[in-house]
């Protein structure tokens, strides 16, 4: 019998050890146990075994005549775990049935549940891992472990470690315990596979562990009150390890809310809590702190739980002031606010945020430096840029004016550099980010200077960011005070406008029947424009005159409004003056504040181009590379070419009236709105019309030759000719990268619209060369354009021709695309590259069935 052999081994070794240093009384314990072991291993008599085991329980000290304390200690320290192992070895169905009603099992279990918890736990884990699976013993042990957890013995395990700090430490034992306590779900999962119990699932176990930690903390606090020394470092380690295992949510989700309450009134609890975090080993500090920041409901709570940890612990300081801010960008906004609020709450910590002295590194200054660095703007993902910007705004909201004044110049310098490079960017989100931060930060850093004011569209992000910049109320309960105040202040002006200048202000406001009128929702009133006089010219030539020579601004406006319709009504008359008209329109300036001037001018230009494509496109493309145009005009040319090409390539165009306000390509400013009424009308028709034949309810798609076929070359090739030759006023490869990006997008669009045309093949070749030349361009917008151009080539050029004539170019492009898809800092670029790669894959799939049979 193995266990007995094991005991024999223990007998020899341990006995010798004991003999060396223990007095004779202690060896009485050993004798008792040896006897008990003998009885247990030889006897089959249930009653006798029961008595023997019962008698041993007096060493736990809870029976009527407990053993002497020294005996208890000796038993616990030397004999207990070996005895437990022996008991595990005895476990079998027959043995348990020696006594009726499961008495034996109860007694057997009581040794594990009542004896010293750490050893019991270790033996349990060990025997579970050692037991053959599946077996009776394994099952029993697992049930026992579940029971062990459910009666709260885990707290006893940890409590034991907290107390032991006073005596000699057992680093190895502690290490083992730590691993087993935290790794329990994994070990059980591995061992039991599908038979695992729900108690051991991590999502159930770790909250339980949290509860147990809390109980131990309670004990620690109680014993500290009683003047006893205790250490929480084992708890810190447990916490750290659990967090490193990625279980912050489960453990801290239980711990933090309770600690929030407990630390509220008690200094002792606060001290214990600070201690708990401080003792977390360095390797786990980041995980724990992140968990705390996440779980704490606000900076006040965080400050209460962590104390001045960041000033005491280097690692914590690194995590809180650098890692979470600069190296990662995964924190949510509430987390970021908690974090920075925590730093700002105490004067010692505040110095980390912002200090006049040059010694400490300061969060705000570094944030601004990071924000301002132009290479960061180019190479850092937009999400992270937003993150840093938000962090800056929160920082500014927390800092007082006096603190900012001290290093105003430095701050302003890095701010301005960042603003400048952001405004230069061709990506609208980056520009907008620059504007918002510039507005808010300059107002805070340099309050007496003239306020910066930019025009940007308001959306969710801008509102969120502006809200972040508002200083938080210092009170502990902002959530109660805030909305009610806002409600009151929001209502007052409303009332005032209603009752303005009236001596009797009361009766209207208090009329409850009339108050319900507020639910009258206004309709869209965008049709309510100024009426135009009826001076509009009725011929295209008349328009031309009115637009060039006229000093009569009403006539000028009317001509602009009428032009598009006239061009479509009389194509022949337009063709006579097409180039002249295009020239006039291209140089047209907004002389009066006409609503929608840009749209009108653009539509007219598109109409001219569509009516007489070849000469006008030729004119426009040459003007694109001419001297003395503004960037705006050059970009207008690109837009017009795209829109005209779109209109020309629209199938069935001749059958229908020209489409007004066709959808705009890419990032078109002030584009026409998709008419909502059309949807409404169609919906109404659908509702009121009964169709007898279900099925193809929609119209058949219009068919016809692609009109763009004949003129695509006029649109496309001239644009490619001069891009690498800088002019005095226009340098595509230099500063004017915005136009270059737009050019790349336009070329892609033209390529796409040239589908099913003869010229697609040479266009594709030329475009791939263009892309190849620019593929490492630093600006994300340009790269996006290039990537979409590649996709357009893949879509428009027939497969056979692609493979026959462009194979080398494609292979080159493919390796580049793979690179971009993996490494590009811009998210959209990666996405576009993946799309292009997918198109290439599709191409290959098409090829395979051809070659396989």
């Amino acid at each position, binding site marked *: 019998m193995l266990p007995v052999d094991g005991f024999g081994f223990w007998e020899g070794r341990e006995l010798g050890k004991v003999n060396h240093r223990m007095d004779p009384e202690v060896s009485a314990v050993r004798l008792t146990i040896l006897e008990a072991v003998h009885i247990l291993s030889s006897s089959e008599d249930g009653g006798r075994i029961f008595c023997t085991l019962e008698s041993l329980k007096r060493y736990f000290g809870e029976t009527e005549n407990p053993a002497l304390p020294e005996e208890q200690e000796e038993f616990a320290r030397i004999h207990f775990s070996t005895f437990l192992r022996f008991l595990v070895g005895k476990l079998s169905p027959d043995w348990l049935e020696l006594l009726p009603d499961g008495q034996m099992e109860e007694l057997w279990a009581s040794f594990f549940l009542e004896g010293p918890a750490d050893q019991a736990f270790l033996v349990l884990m060990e025997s579970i891992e050692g037991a053959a699976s599946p077996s009776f013993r394994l099952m029993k042990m697992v049930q026992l472990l579940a029971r062990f957890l459910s009666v709260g013995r885990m707290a006893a395990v940890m409590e034991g470690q907290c107390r032991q700090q006073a005596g000699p430490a057992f680093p190895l034992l502690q290490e083992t315990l730590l691993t087993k306590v935290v790794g329990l779900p994994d070990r059980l999962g591995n061992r039991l596979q599908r038979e695992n119990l729900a108690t051991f699932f991590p999502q159930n176990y770790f909250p339980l562990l949290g509860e147990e930690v809390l109980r131990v903390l309670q004990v620690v606090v109680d014993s500290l009150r009683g003047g006893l020394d205790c250490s929480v470092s084992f708890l810190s380690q447990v916490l750290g390890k659990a967090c490193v295992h990625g279980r912050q949510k489960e453990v801290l989700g239980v711990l933090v809310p309770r600690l929030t309450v407990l630390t509220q009134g008690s200094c002792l609890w606060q001290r214990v809590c600070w201690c708990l975090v401080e003792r977390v080993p360095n390797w786990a500090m980041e995980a724990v702190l992140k968990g705390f920041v996440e779980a704490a409901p606000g900076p006040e709570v965080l400050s209460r739980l962590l104390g001045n940890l960041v000033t005491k612990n280097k690692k914590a300081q690194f995590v809180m002031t650098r890692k979470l801010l600069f190296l990662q960008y995964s924190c949510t906004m509430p987390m970021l606010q908690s974090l920075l609020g925590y730093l700002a709450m105490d004067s010692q910590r505040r110095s980390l945020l912002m200090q006049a002295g040059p010694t400490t590194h300061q969060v705000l200054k570094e944030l601004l430096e990071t924000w301002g660095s132009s290479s960061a703007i180019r190479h850092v993902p937009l999400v992270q840029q937003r993150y840093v910007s938000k962090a800056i705004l929160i920082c500014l909201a927390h800092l007082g004016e006096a603190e900012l004044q001290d290093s105003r110049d430095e701050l302003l310098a890095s701010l301005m550099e960042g603003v400048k490079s952001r405004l230069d960017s061709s990506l609208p989100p980056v520009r907008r980010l620059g504007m918002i931060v510039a507005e808010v930060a300059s107002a805070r850093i340099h309050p007496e200077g003239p306020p910066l004011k930019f025009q940007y569209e*308001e959306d969710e992000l801008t509102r969120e960011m502006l809200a972040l910049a508002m200083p938080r109320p210092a009170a502990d309960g902002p959530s109660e005070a805030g909305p009610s105040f806002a409600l009151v202040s929001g209502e007052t002006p409303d009332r005032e*406008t*209603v009752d*303005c*200048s*009236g*001596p*009797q202000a009361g009766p*209207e406001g208090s009329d409850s029947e*009339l108050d319900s*009128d507020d639910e*009258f*929702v*206004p*309709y*869209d*009133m965008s*049709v*309510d*424009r*100024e*009426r135009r006089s009826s001076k509009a010219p009725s011929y295209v030539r008349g328009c031309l005159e009115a637009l060039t020579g006229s000093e009569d601004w009403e006539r000028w406006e009317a001509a602009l409004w009428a032009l598009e319709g006239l061009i479509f009504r009389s194509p022949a008359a337009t063709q006579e003056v097409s180039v002249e008209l295009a020239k006039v329109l291209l140089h047209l300036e907004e002389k009066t504040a006409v609503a929608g001037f840009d749209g009108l001018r653009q539509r007219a230009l598109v109409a001219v181009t569509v009516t007489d494509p070849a000469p006008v496109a030729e004119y426009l493309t040459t003007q694109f590379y001419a001297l003395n145009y503004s960037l705006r005009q050059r970009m207008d040319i690109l837009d017009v070419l795209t829109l005209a090409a779109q209109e020309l390539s629209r199938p069935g165009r001749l059958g229908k009236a020209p489409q007004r306000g066709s959808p705009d390509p890419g990032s078109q400013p002030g584009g026409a709105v998709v008419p*909502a*009424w059309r949807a*409404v009308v169609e919906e109404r028709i659908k509702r009121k019309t009964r169709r007898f034949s279900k099925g193809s309810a929609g119209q058949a798609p219009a068919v016809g030759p692609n009109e763009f076929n004949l003129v695509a070359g006029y649109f496309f090739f001239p644009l490619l000719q001069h891009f690498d030759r800088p002019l005095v006023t226009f340098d595509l490869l230099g500063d004017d990268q915005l136009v270059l990006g737009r050019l790349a997008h336009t070329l892609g669009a033209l390529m796409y619209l040239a589908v099913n045309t003869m010229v697609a093949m040479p266009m594709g070749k030329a475009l791939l060369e263009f892309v190849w030349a620019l593929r490492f361009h630093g600006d994300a917008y340009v790269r996006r354009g290039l990537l979409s151009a590649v996709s357009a080539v893949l879509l428009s050029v027939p497969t056979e021709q692609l493979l026959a004539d462009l194979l080398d170019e494609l292979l080159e492009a493919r390796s580049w695309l793979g690179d971009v898809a993996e490494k590009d800092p811009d998210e959209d670029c990666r996405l576009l590259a993946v799309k292009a790669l997918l198109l290439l894959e599709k191409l290959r799939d098409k090829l395979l069935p051809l070659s396989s049979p």
Partner: protein
Amino acid sequence: MAAPRLPPPDPQFVLRGAQSAVHALHFCEGAQGQGRPLLLSGSLRGLVHIWSLQTRRVVATLDGHGGQCVTWLQTLPQGPQLLSQGRDLKLCVWDLAEGRNAVVDSVLLESVGFCRASVLAGGLQRWMLAVPGRGGDEVQILEMPSKTSVCSLKPEAQARLGMPMCLQLWQADTSPRPLLLAGYEDGSVALWDVSSRKVCSRVACHTEPVMGLDFDSQEARGVSGSAEKALAVWSLDEQQALQVRGTHVLTNPGIADVKIRPDRRILATAGWDHRVRVFHWRTMKPLAVLAFHSATVHCVAFAADGLLATGSGDQRISVWSLYPRT
């Protein structure tokens, strides 16, 4: 700005067939015992059409103004009697009972202006009529049906108000004295006490002639529109003094007619810019711009059930159901 606005509403239906510009509209509340009211319209060519809102067809056509424009229509509560004012300087009283349509009486007018008449009928056999009077600046008050001239209200000579442009007779609940609100050519609105023939109060709310006004006697607040680009809201205090409460600037100049809905919740204006504008009466918040007509809108009218009719120079009458009463 958050939620997209509802697209502008469409008319419930459109009445075509007036065959000339529509200059006057009036709802006649179920006089014939029918479920829906009749709609009366007066046209540029002097015809009065009676439309059934049920069949949406012309029920009858009245021709009594010799081809001259009909500018004002009103029915009397005590019986199916219709008043129509025309530019032929005649105000006709029609008997419409039991399918009759004959002129039973007529009043000769002495002013060639555009001013529309006004009626104050307290449910009695006698009623009061205000019409533009002689001399260009007078308002004549007649007692009907006897056609006796009660008085003529002539502003003081130095006031230089010009012609009266629009009239509204009314009576406060608390006092039996009839009052008259008149909009004048110089852009001012005056309150006349008819019995004492005096101007109680006058307020200059426009710089151009007042083209239309309506008054909410329960709230003692009124609104007027003129040839300029603004609507004026004014109120009357206990001392019978008019005060401008605010002006509301419009996109385009020219208001031909203003009406407050009988439930006093919204008001509609007829615009020279072809558009009908709807406002919330208490707050003057713009609610809708109805851009349906293709010519000047001459008149608007509300039915008791809240239906809105608008008549325009494009010979169409559109009928709208906006913010229905629940």
